[in-house]
C-alpha cells in the first residue's frame, strides 16, 4: 500500500507541474493556437458542407435510374415484337397463310367439333 501511495503522490506532483506549465503558456503561443484552431475549423467545416449537395445528388441519381429503367423496359418490349416479326418473316409458310390465320383456326375448330 505504501508503494501505491507513493505512486499516487508522484503522479500528483507530476500533474501539478504539468498544470502549472499550462497556466504559463505565453500569449504568443495562445495566439498561434487560436489561429490554427480557426484554420482547422474553417477548412474542415468548409469541406464538410458538401453534405448540402447530397439531396440534389440523390435526386439526380434517382432520376437517372428511372430513365435507364424505362429505356431498358422499352427495349425489352420492342425486342419481343421484333422477335415475333422475325418468326413470321423467316417462316417457311407464305404470307397468305398468316393473312388467313383466323380462317384456319375456325377450320380447325370445325373439324374437331364434327
Amino acid at each position, binding site marked *: 500500500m505504501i508503494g501505491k501511495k*507513493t*505512486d499516487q*503522490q*508522484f*503522479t500528483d*506532483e*507530476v*500533474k*501539478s*507541474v*504539468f498544470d*502549472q*506549465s*499550462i497556466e*504559463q*503558456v505565453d500569449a504568443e*503561443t*495562445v495566439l*498561434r*493556437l*487560436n489561429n*490554427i*484552431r480557426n*484554420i*482547422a*475549423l474553417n*477548412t*474542415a*467545416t468548409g*469541406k*464538410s*458542407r458538401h453534405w448540402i449537395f447530397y439531396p440534389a445528388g440523390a435526386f439526380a441519381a434517382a432520376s437517372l435510374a428511372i430513365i435507364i429503367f424505362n429505356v431498358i423496359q422499352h427495349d425489352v418490349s420492342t425486342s419481343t415484337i421484333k422477335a415475333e416479326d422475325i418468326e413470321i418473316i423467316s417462316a417457311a409458310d407464305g404470307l397468305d397463310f398468316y393473312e388467313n390465320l383466323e380462317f384456319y383456326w375456325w377450320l380447325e375448330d370445325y373439324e374437331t367439333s364434327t
Partner: protein
Amino acid sequence: MQYDVLHTYTTSTRERPLEQRRELDRFLDSVQKRAFRMAEIATGNREDAFDILQDAMYRFVEKYSTRNFAEWMPLFHTVLQNRIRDWYRRESVRNRFRVWFGQSADEQEPDSMENLADGQMRTPEQQLQNRQGMEVLDQAIRKLPIRQQQAFMLRVFEGMDVAQTARAMNCTTGSVKTHYSRAIHTLREKLGGH
C-alpha cells in the same frame, strides 16, 4: 476535472451547423493548450507540435464533429495520439538516414536532462516545483517509448481511466496497464520519485 466539465455540454450536434461550429470551437479551445503541451513534450519541438495539433484538429472536425459530444474527448485524443505516432515513424526514418550518413542520432541531442539534473544540486521534489522541473519532466517523458508516453500522459495529465486510454491508444486495457506501469517505474527512477 476538465474532462467532466466538458461532458456537461449537449449530446447531439447533428443538424445544427452554426451551433455545432460554436461547440466545436469551445471544445477545441478548451483542449488546445493541453494538447499542444502533450505534442510538445512528445516531439521536443514547438513547430512540430503546432503542426501536429493543427492536423489533429482538422481531422477531428472533418471526421468526428457530428458524433455525440460525450465521444469528442476520447476521439480527439485518438486522433492526436495517431498524429504523434506518425511523427515518431517519420523521425525514426530520418534518424536512420542520419546514422547512415555517419551521424549518430544521440549526437544531435545531447542528454541535457542528465546535465540539468546533476548540475542543479536540487532534490527531484524541488525541481518539480519550478519551471526547470517541467523541462526535466518533459525530457524524461520524451525518452520513454511512445506507447508508454501516451499511456502516461493520457492517464496522468488528462485524467482518463484505463478504458478511455485504451480507446484513445487503439489497444487493450491490459496493454495500457503495462505501458503505464513501466512508464511510472522509469520516470520514478529518473526523477527520483521514491
